[in-house]
């Protein structure tokens, strides 16, 4: 979330798409209701189903699964045509006026941007650049070609937005084909209804109003597509066009699905990052310096503007990380132990773990609270992969499907005896039995206290990992082995090494200084050995450490700030500055400089977040300004300080996206529509790859898979966890499939009858819930059915163990297709057939 949960109450207009917050985030959704109650805000819901969120909405449109970009592209067209954008914001705070490379080509009918290489199914993105001068080679993501040209240091710029090669004009041209008629054919939303939605959402900018604010709320309904990142980008672009980013009640708000996956992302529990969004080194970097050179951007902006370019501090963060990991063993001489870091040059993401396990590369798996069989996609493939692994270590609190893959339904005793995988199942501590911090969707780090002792027989999660690591280290100490140095030299100086105190770990994450230091501006001093007050103090000379620079400031000499519990909110804007601690530097709304106009005055005086104080010549505010504190508005420094341009990117240049600088509508990989109506020559995302094992099968209409299936959660259940909780099982006791009344009538089906849903990969059996909440759709003149399946049931659980379910996980159905940017699987839309079971 760029903003926060409570901040939603400041919105005047709320678009929920690709999400169902009433279902999945009920307690955060209250702030939507507060906006409605206190500001007469309007809630627009666009979803394949009439959801719980839709039930309290003011406008609902049923959309075909996976056609969000067509909807949003049409919305961009509408708001440009009707001038429902904030021009001052657009010109000054976005790259709308930047001139784009002459060679850059829009996809038009071809459906691909300039630079597409059909053989490698990837783009040479050299032309996705600004016109200008200066600059250096660009950063590349792992697995993508390096050596691109860099962004120009000085960008050509047209403040009138009239230049036909400026971003704004290209944008207009790109979405000119997303007409309401076309949107109707693609999405199934009738033209009239669609125009009502466009008018309602953009009505906040009617007649040049710049006071009102709209927010966009989304979740996995946007991310879990083969064009997931671009779904979100389209929304971000709309918010930039309307000037809603950085403002209270605005922003682009990802509702993360779980308690700490924001934290897990921050902490880089993912292959392509190191903590704090530092990009992992690639083999070609060659040295620490090479790595830093590649991942540290340089400013790129119109000549007379300023750019903070905060990522220019990357080396400070990286050196401090290496000091946290390796302590005294990371020195300038050994390039801060650069060799100790594994180098990544390919995709090791989730789906690839299972693919690589299937193909014999991955032999051992740790799964801590991660039920890979259930998560899928293509659960059968994951089960087959596990059969080929040497060993699996599962840390769990309940019996789960992954640890029992070897006796999943359909495996006979004989087959079981042939499975050579050793599985360790280690009982962990429950949430109430451990402390530590979670980072919520709004980037708040909150400490939680342990209420109960860990049950006898169980051990703390960190204790288990620590003990395995220490035991392994002991073996390397005793026996030696391949490249033991990083293992032997890793800092592990916790008071209780085999069960580290998490408070101690958080102190390490925050980081400390090894030398006395002074802030030249404030003359504040810190002593050697003290906690670093904020990441501004981090240095690239090895005198500071920090396990995650964005968390720097969470545990300072003032103590553990994630434990703060002052609920006061003096501004009334839902900032709550002294409750817990928010990254970065306790800032609650990101890019909040953009809540003011160019002159530093708030767009809306009733929602003042930050402002330029002429008296003190500093930025002041009720929130921590997301800006250089003393940058005078006249300097024209861009508010998007993490971008080298300093402005929001309507055009995503160079390596930013694998599949295009502007979002483009593509059909899901499994789609009932044979042609991409908007870009007729390219049906799917051109850069999406299919996996190749025998388990990776893909269905099409030709094979009889004509029904669109989507998957989702219910508010009564939590993933694959609450099927062990008798209370939640009582609320929703059995799996079901939601189908429309028309489809049921056609099948001669009554609610409660069992049906079998099959995809090219597997079958799912459950009772049918016949409902008015999903309707048959007319897509390009053809009647199309959509069905929906909640994901919560597997083969271990209360209902499952009582034999009340068919023991078919939903992800037996879902395909192994991932988004080319985020590598998130396409769980949300695929093809099935439905029959009575």
């Amino acid at each position, binding site marked *: 979330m760029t903003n926060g949960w409570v901040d939603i109450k400041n919105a005047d207009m709320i678009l929920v798409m690709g999400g169902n917050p*009433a279902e999945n985030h*009920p*307690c955060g959704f209250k702030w939507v*209701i507060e906006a409605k*109650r206190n500001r007469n805000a309007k809630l627009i819901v666009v979803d394949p189903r009439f959801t*719980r969120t839709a039930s*309290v909405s003011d406008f609902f449109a049923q959309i075909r699964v996976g056609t969000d970009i067509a909807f949003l592209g049409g919305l961009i067209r509408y708001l440009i045509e009707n001038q429902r954008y904030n021009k001052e914001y657009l010109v000054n705070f976005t790259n709308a006026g930047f001139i784009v490379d002459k060679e850059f080509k829009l996809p038009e009918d071809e459906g691909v941007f300039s630079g597409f290489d059909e053989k490698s199914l990837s783009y040479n993105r050299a032309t996705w650049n600004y016109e200008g001068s200066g600059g250096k080679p660009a950063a590349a993501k792992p697995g993508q070609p390096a050596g691109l040209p860099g962004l120009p240091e000085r960008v050509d710029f047209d403040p009138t937005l009239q230049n036909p090669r400026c971003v704004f004009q290209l944008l207009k041209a790109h979405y000119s084909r997303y007409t309401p008629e076309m949107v109707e054919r693609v999405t199934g939303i009738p033209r009239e209804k669609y125009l009502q939605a466009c008018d309602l959402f953009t009505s906040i900018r009617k007649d040049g109003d710049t006071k009102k604010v709209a927010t966009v709320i989304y979740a996995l309904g946007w991310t879990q597509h083969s064009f997931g990142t671009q779904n979100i980008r389209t929304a971000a672009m709309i918010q930039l066009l309307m000037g809603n980013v950085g403002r209270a009640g605005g922003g682009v708000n990802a509702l993360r699905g779980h308690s700490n996956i924001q934290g897990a992302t921050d902490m880089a529990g993912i292959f392509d990052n190191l903590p704090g969004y530092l990009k992992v080194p690639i083999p070609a970097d060659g040295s620490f310096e090479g790595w830093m050179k590649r991942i540290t951007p340089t400013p790129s902006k119109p000549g007379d503007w300023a750019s903070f370019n905060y990522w220019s501090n990357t080396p400070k963060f990286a050196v401090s990380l290496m000091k946290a990991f390796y302590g005294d063993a990371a020195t300038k001489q050994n390039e801060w132990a650069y060799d100790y870091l594994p180098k990544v040059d390919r995709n090791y993401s989730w789906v690839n773990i299972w693919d690589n396990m299937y193909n014999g590369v991955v032999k051992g798996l740790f799964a801590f609270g991660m039920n890979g069989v259930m998560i899928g996609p293509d659960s059968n493939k994951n089960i087959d992969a596990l059969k080929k692994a040497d060993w699996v270590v599962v840390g769990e609190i309940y019996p789960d499907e992954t640890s029992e893959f070897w006796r999943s339904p359909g495996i006979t005793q004989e087959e079981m005896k042939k499975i050579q995988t050793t599985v360790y199942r280690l009982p962990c501590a429950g949430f109430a039995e451990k402390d530590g911090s979670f980072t919520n969707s709004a980037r708040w780090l909150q400490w939680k206290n342990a209420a109960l002792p860990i049950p006898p027989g169980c051990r703390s999660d960190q204790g288990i990992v620590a003990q395995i690591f220490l035991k392994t280290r002991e073996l390397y100490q005793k026996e030696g082995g391949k490249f033991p140095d990083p293992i032997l030299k890793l800092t592990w100086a916790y008071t209780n090494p085999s069960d580290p105190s998490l408070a101690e770990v958080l102190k390490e994450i925050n980081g400390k200084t090894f030398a006395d230091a002074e802030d030249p501006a404030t003359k504040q001093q810190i002593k050697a050995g003290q906690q670093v007050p904020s990441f501004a103090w981090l240095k690239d000379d090895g005198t500071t450490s920090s396990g995650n620079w964005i968390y720097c400031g969470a545990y300072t000499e003032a103590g553990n700030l994630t434990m703060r519990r002052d609920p006061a909110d003096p501004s009334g804007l839902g900032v709550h500055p002294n409750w817990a601690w928010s990254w970065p530097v306790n800032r609650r709304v990101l890019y909040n400089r953009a809540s003011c106009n160019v002159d530093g005055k708030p767009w809306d005086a009733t929602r003042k977040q930050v402002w330029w104080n002429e008296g003190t010549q500093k930025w002041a505010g009720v929130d921590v300004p997301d800006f250089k504190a003393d940058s005078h508005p006249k300097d024209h420094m861009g508010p998007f300080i993490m971008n080298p341009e300093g402005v929001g990117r309507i055009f995503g240049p160079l390596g930013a996206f694998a599949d295009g600088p502007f979002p483009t509508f593509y059909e899901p990989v499994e789609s009932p529509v044979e042609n991409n109506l908007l870009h007729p020559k390219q049906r799917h995302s051109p850069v999406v790859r299919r996996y190749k094992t025998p388990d990776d099968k893909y269905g099409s209409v030709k094979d009889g898979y004509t029904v669109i299936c989507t998957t989702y959660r219910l*508010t009564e259940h939590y993933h694959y966890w609450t099927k062990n909780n008798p209370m939640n099982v009582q609320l929703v006791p059995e799996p079901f499939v939601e189908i429309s009344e028309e489809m049921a009538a056609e099948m001669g089906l009554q609610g409660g009858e069992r049906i079998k849903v099959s995809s090219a990969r597997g079958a799912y059996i459950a*009772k049918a*819930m016949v409902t008015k909440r999903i309707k048959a759709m007319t897509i390009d003149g053809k009647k199309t059915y959509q069905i929906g399946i909640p994901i919560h049931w597997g083969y271990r659980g209360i209902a499952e163990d009582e034999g009340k379910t068919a023991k078919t996980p939903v992800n037996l159905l879902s395909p192994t297709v991932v988004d080319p940017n985020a590598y998130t699987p396409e769980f949300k839309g695929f093809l099935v057939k439905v029959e009575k079971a």
Partner: protein
Amino acid sequence: MSQATLRIQKISAHSGTVPGEDTQRQYQVCKLVDTTTCIGCKACEVACVEWNDMPFSPTAFGNTYQTMPETRWNYWNLILFNEHEREDGTLQWLMRKHQCMHCAEPGCLEACPADGAIVQYTNGIVDFQQANCIGCGYCITGCPFNIPKFNNVTKRMYKCSLCADRVSEGLEPACIKSCPTGCLHFGSKDDMTELAGIRAKQLRDHYGYDKAGVYDPPGVGGTGVIYVLHDATQPELYGGLPSNPSIPLAVKFWKHPLKWLGNIAMVGGLIGLFVHYLKFGPKAREEADLAPKGGA
């Protein structure tokens, strides 16, 4: 002492005066349920079961998101889900929290024959005292909302207590506290009525629900649970909420005219027979008298 003598203003089947009747300044408490912001998440259902430590009982799929068809003795609070297509073709998914309405004039209490099995506190909460309950089920007959439920093992009746244990300690009921969207609100009846009115007006003025209104049925003297409805003219849409509920006529007839008539008749009959005896005596003083005079 949590709930003192003076905190009781009505007692079922009670033959004396009631200690708290009109002796307290205490305000009436009230739950406000704004159905227009209910998302049917069932947090209130869970909060109720959890707070009251009620045992779980099996449920079955019923082609709906609704947990069970109606409340149970161990499930006092149930969201009713209804899919409703309006005349303009738009769909409404109406959700209503169904629980004891805590009527000012409770039909259950009226029908109850057991002394002290049902009481109404001065704050308006209608509470079942299971210790005094005899399990006759007359409260079922008396209730216009289908609330009291029978436990087959204990042979007693159960229903929502409006968390009287919490309220008496100054806390809000468990369901109210849990409600994520704030569709549930708790306070004095006056405050809730005002709040409901404001919300209904907002729905009429800003959200196009011309018939939005407040449900506080006068037929049972008003309720301790009031609803804001999108369409107050059709409460039946919300899972059969009666549009003008009252204590069933049969119960009223039974408990008033019939009872008095019967009592008068019985007492009168006894007196009549006694007077008859006084006046006429037995048909024969001794059995021997029966013998015909003069012998046979």
